[in-house]
């Protein structure tokens, strides 16, 4: 009876101290924190993030793991985090030390499977730079675009599944298209472009205060006579065709009217969310071009 009781308590204590580290669809079970468990967690996590690989090894009776300029050393009695010896280390201590974003629910630790480094709103485009796996879904409702977490996503804070990470009001949007590139997602709001006004800028000016129904004209004072529009890219599977085609129509007219040679060059000044043209020509010609465009628009 005494033996059974001891076994029972041992079993209880084992169950009590057993944790699940959940990294996307991988679960690592661990009842204590040691070199092998830590190595397994960090290896799995750095692979998921496609981030810096861990370095590990032994020095005498010590075993160490290095990741992202942080060093954890395992000795017989203590764990050393950089220069600090910690007795009775917890997973919270370990994850905080490595700046791993996690959520603890009872015995489960959920690690962020997607770390959003940058979310840029470029009008009809959203550009998301991230590490890990794409754990986002999108939907449109009542002219509002929602970005929703499908898993554990970190963007300024940790989001659990099915939380709204970002929303924005959108107009005249037919549908949404997701383009996945390495470590980057481009969300396009597919619109029909109808030029309602023309906005003029100079080459070194910040291109702002325009909307998708503006034609953006960018002048550069130059002895050359060129007109440029952004090329379409196979990366967008034809979804940037309408923007390209609208810009191209105006660029061809200008090319013919003012004897400007047309090239397809994605100058950084050209907006991704509105038709745009860069014109290299003498500033003496700018007014004539403006008059022509305003006449054409009317």
């Amino acid at each position, binding site marked *: 009876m005494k033996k059974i009781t001891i076994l029972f308590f041992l079993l209880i204590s084992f169950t009590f101290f057993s944790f699940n580290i959940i990294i996307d669809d991988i679960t690592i079970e661990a009842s204590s924190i040691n070199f092998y468990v830590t190595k397994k967690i960090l290896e799995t996590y750095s692979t998921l993030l496609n981030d810096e690989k861990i370095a590990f090894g032994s020095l005498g009776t010590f075993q160490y793991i290095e990741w992202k300029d942080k060093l954890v050393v395992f000795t017989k009695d203590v764990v050393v985090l950089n220069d600090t010896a910690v007795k009775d280390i917890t997973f919270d201590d370990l994850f905080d030390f490595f700046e791993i974003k996690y959520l603890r629910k009872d015995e489960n630790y959920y690690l962020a499977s997607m770390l959003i480094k940058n979310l840029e709103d470029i009008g009809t485009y959203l550009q998301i730079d991230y590490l890990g796996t794409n754990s986002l879904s999108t939907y449109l409702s009542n002219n509002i675009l929602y970005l929703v977490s499908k898993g554990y996503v970190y963007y300024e804070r940790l989001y659990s599944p099915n939380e709204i990470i970002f929303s924005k009001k959108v107009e005249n949007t037919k549908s949404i298209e997701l383009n996945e590139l*390495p470590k980057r997602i481009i969300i396009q709001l597919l619109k029909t472009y109808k030029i309602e006004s023309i906005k003029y800028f100079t*080459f070194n000016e910040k291109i702002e205060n325009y909307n998708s129904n503006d034609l953006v004209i960018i002048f*550069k004072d*130059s*002895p*050359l006579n060129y007109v*440029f529009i*952004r*090329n*379409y*890219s*196979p*990366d*967008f599977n034809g979804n940037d065709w309408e923007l390209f085609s609208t810009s191209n129509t105006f660029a061809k007219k200008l090319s013919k009217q003012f004897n400007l*040679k047309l*090239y*397809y*060059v*994605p*100058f*950084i*000044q050209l907006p991704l969310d509105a038709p745009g043209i860069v014109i*290299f020509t003498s500033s003496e010609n700018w007014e004539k071009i403006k008059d022509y465009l305003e006449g054409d628009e009317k």
Partner: protein
Amino acid sequence: MKKFLICFLLLISLFTFSEKIALIENNDIIFKEVSIDKLTVENIFEVLSSYSNSLVPKNILNAYYFVDTSLIIDLDSSLIRNFSAEDEFLFLLQILYTLFENIQGIDRIYIIEDGKQTNLLVKYINIYFSFPKELYRIPD
């Protein structure tokens, strides 16, 4: 007479250039017919950099890769960092026109720098996304 004619035609064929490359003249792109021994990406860059009216520096190509119908070229950014806006677009067009003309089986080109995907070629041109062959065909 017949032998002479054959020899003459052979001689002509030896001097007939078949490859076209893009060079610079009066701040614009021009196309020139040249002979390139072996049409590899490396050779094409070497030929482009051998002309004085070219903006392609010697040893600019770090590496290149083919992935399906894409060509990925990796450039050394330090060799073009002082380009003006004009130099930058002419350099880009030289590369795109020449590679699409001479490398068979590709329909898009990605440009990366120093082994990494980057936003800017130098200062003014976005190279994050690929360039399609259709827009950079050398006219006949």
